[in-house]
């Protein structure tokens, strides 16, 4: 990703940080967009379910300790309409995910953008017009 592409994502990220509503529950009541960060790791499980598709990622910190994060996507119907397919994320894939973490401290977060092992950047929201793939 180029620096300028990063800028576009960052700028749009700033906007979505003030959007309070999510599909099925109030975003502001569950996630803290002001603490958004990037998590990198290996996919351990994928749940293509309602009300949210989820995937789980083992993230290793500097000391080598591994934490399994539960990452929330949109619902499968919305993802499908954005151009996602259920096999885009596979167990064992190395991914990098821009997330807004849960307010309650759980190892749970809302995934905003997902960079796949092959370098494709899946934007769950801002790239709807491009079919969800950048």
């Amino acid at each position, binding site marked *: 990703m180029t620096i300028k592409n990063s800028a*576009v994502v960052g700028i749009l990220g700033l906007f979505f940080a003030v959007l309070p509503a999510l599909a099925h529950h109030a975003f502001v009541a569950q996630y803290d967009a002001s603490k958004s960060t990037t998590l990198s790791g290996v996919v351990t499980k994928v749940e293509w379910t309602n*009300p949210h598709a989820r995937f789980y990622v083992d993230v290793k910190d500097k000391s080598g300790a591994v934490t399994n994060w539960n990452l929330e996507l949109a619902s499968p119907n919305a993802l499908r309409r954005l151009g996602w397919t259920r096999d885009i994320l596979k167990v064992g894939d190395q991914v990098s995910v821009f997330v807004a973490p849960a307010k309650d401290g759980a190892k*749970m977060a809302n995934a905003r953008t997902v960079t796949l092992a092959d370098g494709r950047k899946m934007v769950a929201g801002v790239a709807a017009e491009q079919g969800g793939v950048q």
Partner: protein
Amino acid sequence: MREDRVCSSVRSALFVVAVLTFSAALAFGQGQQGQPEPAGVNPAGGGVPMRSLERLKAKSAGPAPRAADGKPDLSGLWGPEPRFMGDISNALKPGEKLPLQPWAVKVSRERLSKDDPEANCLPAGIPRQTPFPFKIIQTPKLVVILIEGNMHTYRQVFVDGSTHPKDLDPTWFGDSRGKWEGDTLVVDTIGFNDKFWFDGIGHPHTEKLHIVERYRRPDAAHLDYEVTIDDPGAYTRPFTMYGQSPLLQNAEIMEYFCNENNQDVAHVIGKGRPAKE
């Protein structure tokens, strides 16, 4: 060349953000000018699912089709109206406020998002919408509304001249009877329970709720509606809200059973409105 396009994208994104942020700031500002009930949530609610429908919107707008009986045909797959999601105040005429009774102001300020029936996979009721499409199937004597989410459900509107049954049990969608006034389908609904919230921030109602919806199809690609709420148990006077749904093409209702894997509620700790309020 590519660099130019990227720079242009950055400028466009900045402009869009500036406009939207300014709009949001205005909306929040309006909610802080001494009125008892703050205008809460940015009308651009619905997030990702709403954006997933953008490219499905019908482009051309010819005249509204007519059914065999000469009535306008409201049948079609319609996109949701974000003004009926986070905060129904957004669906009022500009400058209007919800005429909440004092207890209703208190309730909507105190309600926690974890208790939202919609977040718990229960029906949204009326007039609340979710960021998923709905499908209208119109026949001469019965109009059926198939609702994709937050849970799969349906409404039946009887347009056969019948009236509401007496002694209705209170339900999530009540009992709906429709009639045509010219090209407008007028739907009268009573028999509601008091369990659902009008929106994500928890505007309440009581079993005294009476709703009149007026649906029109001004052209092939749009469905306009007015929703008049009369609930003397929670509001000081009737009030009317306005919405429009876009026709969606090359798409269908998709399956959505919310209680399949609902992990959220256990982690929802705040209110469905921005923390500043």
